[in-house]
């Protein structure tokens, strides 16, 4: 990515809000601002970090918008470059024309996350902060925004820091024993190490287990509507979305391919997928649709098995259930407004919901069930750190291996040197999340902690 030119992009989301902010970053920011902006006070120079009222005009001198503008001189800015922010009126049309204006001046439209990328490149953020910020930008819903903010504030960094300082403590002692065998040092007692490593191992395991949750929260969970033709899947999709997105008819086999739509359920981003009803068909389009449905099932975070409650379940319902085996399943009886006498536990020990897409009955309870399933156990503890980045997940997973080996070495009286080796490796992986532990750090601790010197 080129980082030498000047870039522009809306800094606020694309929703129609009253006010929008457009950000420009790079060496030409200030000259770009002045090219189209006239401050009400007619100033020819703007002070850094001060807000100025004025008008934006295009080359034909037409007023594009009445705005507030601020110029922030490098390096005390988000990107550490010269930055200009323009607060304009929030309509899409206004934003578009302002962007166009600046593009005509040679300012490039920023790629997604490019401001953050620059901030990172300029040393403004550490890697884990940068990742959190980029998630913040992409965060679609409230709860993922909260998560991103927590991580940026150092939630994850703090936990990782705690892990690495415990490992570092072990390494300091071990290295002291190795490098200074003739000095007065604490006894070579590794019983403590075993306790610390055991504890660390289980803590890291716990955190890595939050990964799927964390990922769901930022990337969104995929929820599949599966069921036999005419069960009411598309209607349920529309009801949950609150708009007529999917085509609904009383002809079985209406939906022949996926229809995917994002929405937020109680703050959890979800991507809802309507599928082709499962049955044996001779229509090649439908057959392909069915095949793709089955493929998609294996990737779903949750499957809603949609069952028509106005009729007795039959073989097709059971085979639909079968194709979902292995995935988390909710059994959702639709058309509850015209339900017949039924045994609602026919399909086994899955959570059961009864809804009507027509009257909206039971929809709230379904929504609630979905969101609490996706948020599972972390919602209660605000302290828990959720892993959302695959890089973090991998680093932690990889560090489990050397920790396990070090533990094994400690328990089996292996060479001290090998324990040091494994601890170093574990620290290396943790360092990929929040900065490495250098030899200098270790030596500093040795010399300040122990009286060494012959």
């Amino acid at each position, binding site marked *: *990515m*080129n*980082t*030498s030119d000047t870039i522009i992009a809306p800094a606020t989301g694309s929703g129609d809000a009253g006010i929008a902010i457009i950000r420009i970053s790079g060496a030409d920011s200030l000259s770009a601002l002045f090219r189209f902006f006239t401050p009400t006070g007619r100033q020819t120079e703007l002070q850094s970090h001060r807000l100025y009222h004025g008008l934006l005009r295009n080359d034909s001198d037409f007023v594009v918008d009445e705005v507030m503008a601020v110029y922030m001189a490098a*390096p005390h800015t988000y990107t550490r*470059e010269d930055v200009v922010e323009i607060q304009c009126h929030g309509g899409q049309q206004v934003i578009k024309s302002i962007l166009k204006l600046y593009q005509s001046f040679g300012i490039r439209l920023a790629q997604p996350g490019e401001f953050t990328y*620059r901030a*990172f*490149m*300029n*040393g403004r953020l550490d*890697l884990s902060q940068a990742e959190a910020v980029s998630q913040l930008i992409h965060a679609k819903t409230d709860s993922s925004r909260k998560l991103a903010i927590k991580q940026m504030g150092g939630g994850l960094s703090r936990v990782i820091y705690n892990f690495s300082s415990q490992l570092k403590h072990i390494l300091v002692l071990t*290295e002291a*024993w*190795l*490098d*200074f*065998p*003739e*000095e*007065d040092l604490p006894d070579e007692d590794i019983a403590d190490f075993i306790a610390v490593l055991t504890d660390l191992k289980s803590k890291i395991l716990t955190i890595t287990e939050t990964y799927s949750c964390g990922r769901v929260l930022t990337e969104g969970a995929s929820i599949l509507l599966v069921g036999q033709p005419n069960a009411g899947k598309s209607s349920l999709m529309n009801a949950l979305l609150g708009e007529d997105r999917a085509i609904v008819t009383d002809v079985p086999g209406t939906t022949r391919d996926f229809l995917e739509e994002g929405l937020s359920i109680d703050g959890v981003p979800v991507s809802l997928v309507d599928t082709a009803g499962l049955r044996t068909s001779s229509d090649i389009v439908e057959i392909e649709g069915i095949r793709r449905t089955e493929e998609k099932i294996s990737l779903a975070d949750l499957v809603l098995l949609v069952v028509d409650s106005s009729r007795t379940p039959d073989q097709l319902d059971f085979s639909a259930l079968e194709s979902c085996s292995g995935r988390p399943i909710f059994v959702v009886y639709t058309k509850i407004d015209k339900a017949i006498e039924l045994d609602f536990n026919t399909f086994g020990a899955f959570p059961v919901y009864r809804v009507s897409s027509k009257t909206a009955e039971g929809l709230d309870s379904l929504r609630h069930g979905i969101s609490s399933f996706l948020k599972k156990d972390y919602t209660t503890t605000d302290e828990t750190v959720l892993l959302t980045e695959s890089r973090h997940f991998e680093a932690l997973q990889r560090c489990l291996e050397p920790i396990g080996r070090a533990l094994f070495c400690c328990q*089996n009286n*292996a*060479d*001290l*040197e*090998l324990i*040091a*080796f494994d601890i*170093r*490796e574990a620290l290396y992986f943790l360092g990929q999340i929040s900065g490495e532990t250098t*030899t*200098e750090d*270790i*030596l500093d601790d040795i*010399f300040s902690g122990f*009286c*060494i*010197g*012959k």
Partner: protein
Amino acid sequence: MSNYGKNYQVIVVGAGHAGCEAALASARMGCTTLLLTIGLDTVAQMSCNPSIGGLAKGHLVHEVDALGGEMGLNIDATGIQFRRLNTRKGPAVRAARAQADRMAYSARMKNVIENEALLDLKQGLVEEVLVEQNRIVGVKTREGLEFLGQTVVLTTGTFMRGLIHVGLNHYAGGRAGEPSAEGISASLASYGLRVGRLKTGTPARLSARSIDFSKLERQAGDKVVKPFSFMTGSIDRKQVDCYIAETNERTHEIIRNNLDKSPLYAGIIEGIGPRYCPSIEDKIVRFPDKNSHQSFIEPECLKGSEMYPSGLSTSLPPEVQLAYFRSMVGFESVEIMRPGYAIEYDFIEPMQLKATLETRVIDGLFHAGQINGTSGYEEAAGQGILAGINAARQCQEQPPVVIGRDQGYLGVMIDDLITQPTTDPYRMFTSRSEYRLLLREDNADQRLTELGRKIGLVSDERWRCYVEKQKQVEAAMSFLQDTKVTSSDSLTVEKLNLGDLKSGVSLEQLLRRPEINIQDVTSVCSGLRDYSPQALEQVEIAIKYEGYIKRQREQVKRDREQEDVKLPETLDYDAIPSISTEVREKLKKIKPTSLGQAGRIQGVTPAAIAVIQIYLRKKSS
């Protein structure tokens, strides 16, 4: 002004531990070499503790030896007590250590130098470097004599503007009883080299006959000695004992009551001392809870009475030194022969050096040893041999020799020196090496002897032995892999406690068991006795630590990716966008040779490395 008339290829200034190795290396590589030093009676003098080796230092000696250096042979010939440290903590942290007979050590080294054909040893105190158009052309002594040379290696130790402190008194000196070299650092500074100031200290030397050794714990040497040098056979000379003494509360009280007489606490000393080698007054101030400190009492030579009390270096006045010694058990009527002292001296910031130890400022000028802010004989010798090699290579118009961090402690040390700012005297520790498992004393030959041979430092004899050992290692490995033990070998089964043996296993597989070592296997298998212990040791380590060694090699490979991205010396850091001015200035100053090295420079952020990487990729595409 007069000119000596003879033109040398390499001139080495200072016959300390760095200078001796530098001069011997360049002469052995075929360059006419001059070794100039202040006093011919102090060649390879041990300024401080009379010992060689120890953790990481022993490793350095092995590496110097593997390249064809002298230090290992010299200590093997003059050591009076040998001990191997850390025998049970893993193969890479075992280290050799020996007490030297200080006089014999110095005398033998001088003798070796005197007998080196292309090497002239002369007395002379250098006051000035001679430079023409940024290129060194020679040196000038205090007497005004000029020696001309194509390259110069400076190894001035603690002598540049050396200032000795004893109590609140101080005077110029390079080492107790020797003059300082006053002019040379100013001469270097005039060409733009940055000069810094450091400090170190040494304890008093005590008279043996005034110490009651019966009250001290005795510490003997190892029964079987493992020599430092690859070329030394066995050492079975009689060894001397050391003793262990202890300070006590009274000692500490005396010191505490006299802190105002310490130049350090009185604020007279500006140089920074080594963290790992604090004076006794420092230890007592910094660790007030410790009510006793240990000291090894080491003999300085066989035919002499001076004893060296380790860990008790000081700059307190002599009368205070005497009082605190006499408070210690066994030292009630001790006599001090030479008082302890502290010394401040100039060093030249090593970040101004290339990885060849040539200065960036003056072509053909190399620095090695304490002048680079290091401390220790072994560190000095290691730099010395490399500076000597590279000075010679330059004269011979051959590409320079740089040792990688994965190749030796020598590489780790030099890379550290040129990328990390010196905050206190640099000493080698095994923990400084990220590839410790690969950099062992036992495989120094495998790491460096081929290189030494290639550049003409390794003698035919050493090469022959090396090749022979390699052959043995290979043969022993095949032997272990091919020889099987079955449950019917009842003697083996019984001796090695193999009751659980079901099907046949190879000796190699047996050796993998933690409880079985190579001696056990040799005891039941006479065929192995044909191989040398050194070869068997290699095979044992390779088998027992295979998993770890493999992982370590993977780390080397992982880091190599950045190590292999070479940064041209001509790289224009001003043209790279988005790196902070601070980082840019550092990179411009140090001119790292690889991306990996750039990343090790203090203050260079991963973000900056990413930017450079992106910039290079963009430029090449």
